[in-house]
C-alpha cells in the first residue's frame, strides 16, 4: 500500500513543478468560464435564468475532462523513459505507478474546480444547493475525473509518444459539446440526440446541475454513477493488461 502513497506523492510533486501544466490547468478553466459567460452568454438563452448559472457546471465538466486527459501524457512520459524499467526492477507494481498518476490528476482537477467556482461566483453564479447537495455534486464530479483519468491512462499506455497521447485530450475536450453541458439537447439536430443522451457527460452534467440548482435530479445521479463505475470497470483492468503487455 505504501507504494501507492509514495508514487501518488511523486506524481503530485511532478505536476506541481511542471509550470506549463499548472498554468494550463488553472488558467484555461478560468478563461473558458469567462468566454462562455461573456462571449456566448448573451446569444444563448437556456431557460434556466441567467446563463452563468446554467453553464458553470458545464465548464466544470469541460475542465475536468481536459485535466483528466492530461494523465495520458504523463503516463506516456513515464513509459517512454527509463524510469518505468527502474520501477519494475524494484518490483513496484504497474497499477501503483498508474494510480499515482490518477491521484495527481484528481488533485490537479480539484484545484481547477476551485478556481472555476471562484470565478463563477465572481461573475454571478448563484447556486441554491445545501451542504449535502454540494458534497454530492463535487463527489460525482471527482468520480467522473477519476474514471476519465483511468481511461486516459489506457490511452497513455497505448500511445507511443507524449505527443500522440496528447491527441486523446482533443477527444475528451470535445465530448461535453454534444451533451447538455452548454445548450439543451433538444436544440441539437435530431441525429445527435441518441449520442448526446447516451454518453457519460450528460448524466454527470444533469445531476450536477440538478444538485447545485436544487431541482429534481431524477435518475441522473444513478446513471452518472453507473457510467463512472462502468468506465472504471473497463479502464482499470485494461491498464493492468496493457502495462504488462507494454513492458514485456
Amino acid at each position: 500500500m505504501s507504494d501507492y502513497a509514495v508514487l501518488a506523492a511523486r506524481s503530485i510533486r511532478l505536476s506541481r513543478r511542471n509550470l506549463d501544466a499548472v498554468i494550463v490547468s488553472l488558467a484555461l478553466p478560468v478563461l473558458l468560464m469567462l468566454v462562455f459567460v461573456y462571449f456566448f452568454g448573451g446569444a444563448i438563452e437556456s431557460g434556466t435564468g441567467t446563463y452563468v448559472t446554467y453553464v458553470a457546471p458545464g465548464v466544470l465538466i469541460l475542465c475536468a475532462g481536459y485535466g483528466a486527459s492530461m494523465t495520458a501524457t504523463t503516463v506516456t512520459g513515464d513509459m517512454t523513459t527509463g524510469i518505468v524499467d527502474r520501477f519494475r526492477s524494484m518490483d513496484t507494481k504497474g497499477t501503483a505507478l498508474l494510480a499515482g498518476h490518477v491521484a495527481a490528476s484528481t488533485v490537479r482537477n480539484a484545484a481547477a474546480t476551485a478556481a472555476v467556482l471562484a470565478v463563477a461566483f465572481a461573475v454571478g453564479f448563484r447556486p441554491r444547493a445545501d451542504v449535502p447537495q454540494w458534497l454530492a455534486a463535487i463527489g460525482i464530479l471527482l468520480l467522473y475525473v477519476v474514471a476519465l483519468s483511468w481511461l486516459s491512462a489506457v490511452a497513455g499506455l497505448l500511445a507511443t509518444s507524449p505527443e500522440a497521447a496528447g491527441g486523446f485530450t482533443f477527444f475528451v475536450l470535445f465530448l461535453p459539446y454534444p451533451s447538455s453541458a452548454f445548450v439543451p439537447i433538444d436544440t441539437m439536430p435530431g441525429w445527435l440526440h441518441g449520442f448526446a443522451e447516451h454518453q457519460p457527460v450528460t448524466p454527470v452534467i444533469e445531476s450536477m446541475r440538478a444538485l447545485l440548482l436544487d431541482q429534481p435530479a431524477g435518475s441522473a445521479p444513478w446513471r452518472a454513477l453507473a457510467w463512472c463505475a462502468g468506465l472504471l470497470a473497463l479502464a482499470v483492468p485494461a491498464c493492468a493488461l496493457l502495462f504488462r503487455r507494454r513492458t514485456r
Partner: protein
Amino acid sequence: MDSTPAEGWAIEARGLRKRYGAVRVLDGLDLRVRPGSVCALLGPNGAGKTTAVRILTTLTAPDAGRARVAGHDVVTARSRVRRAVSLTGQYAALDEEQTGEENLRMMGRLRGLPRRQAARRAAELLERFGLTDAGRRRVVTYSGGMRRRLDIAAGLTRDPEVVFLDEPTTGLDPRSRRTMWEVVASLAESGVTVFLTTQYLEEADQLAHQVAVLDRGRLIAEGAPEELKRRVAARRLDLTLVDRHAYEAVHARVVGGALHASPGELLLSVPTDGSAAHVRALLDELDPARVEIARFTVQGATLDDVFLELTHE
C-alpha cells in the same frame, strides 16, 4: 570457469535465447559470475548486451534457456531476483523535476524503507557519490556524469547483492568516465557482485576480473582480461597493395580475416606479434610471388584491433 563457489554463482545463465521478430538477439548465451567479482560483458552495438541485462534483471523473459541471479530463477522467482539486484540502465531513470535527494528518498521508500531511514540513506548515498551539494537541486540541472552517479546511487538504497550497470560510461566525457571507474571499483571493494556492459575493451580491462565478449548474440571469448590480451596479437601489419587485382588476391589469402580492409586505399591490416620472423612469414604467405605488396608498416595494435580480431574468430 572452474569449480562452483561454495555460496553458489552470483549469476548463472545457460542457453539464453531471445529473438525479436526475425532477429536473433541472443543465441544461446552461457555465463557464470562469481560472487563479489566484477564481470564485464563486452560487445559492439547490437551484440545483445542490453537484452542479456534485461533478461538477468527479469525485465524481459527469455524465449529459451535458464538463468539464476543471486540464487533465484529469473522467470519463476522474479520478485526475489528483483529484491536482490539493482539495475542502472543506459538512460538515466530519474525524475528530472525532482531533486537528487527526493529521487533517492522515493527509491528508498519504494524499496520498503520507513520514511526516516529512507531520508538517512539518501543523505549517505549523496555523500558517498559526491553529490551532497547538488542534493537539493533538481536533476534537470545535473551534468551527465552527476546524473549517472545519482542513477547508480538510486540502485543502492537497499544494499543489493548484484548490481547491473548497462553501459555506465557511454556518452560521458573522459573525466566523468574516470569518476565512474572509481565508483565501480569502490562498489567491487564493498563486496557486491557487479555486472556491467561496455563497448570499450579498455574499460573492461580496467574494471573487470572476468570479461565475456559478446558478438551477435553469442559469447566468442571469455576469461580474465590478461588471458584475453594474450590470445590476441599485440601488433598489426599494414599492407599497401599494388592494384585492385592484387588487393583481391591477397585479401583472399588472409587466414581468419583482416583487421582492416579498405579497398579504396588498397590497404589491408593483419595481426602479427611484430617479430621479424612472423612478419617475413606473413609476407611470404600472403604474396608468394612477391609482386603484389607494394609497401608494409608494423603498427602497435589498438584496442579496437584486439576487439576486431576477437569478433572475427
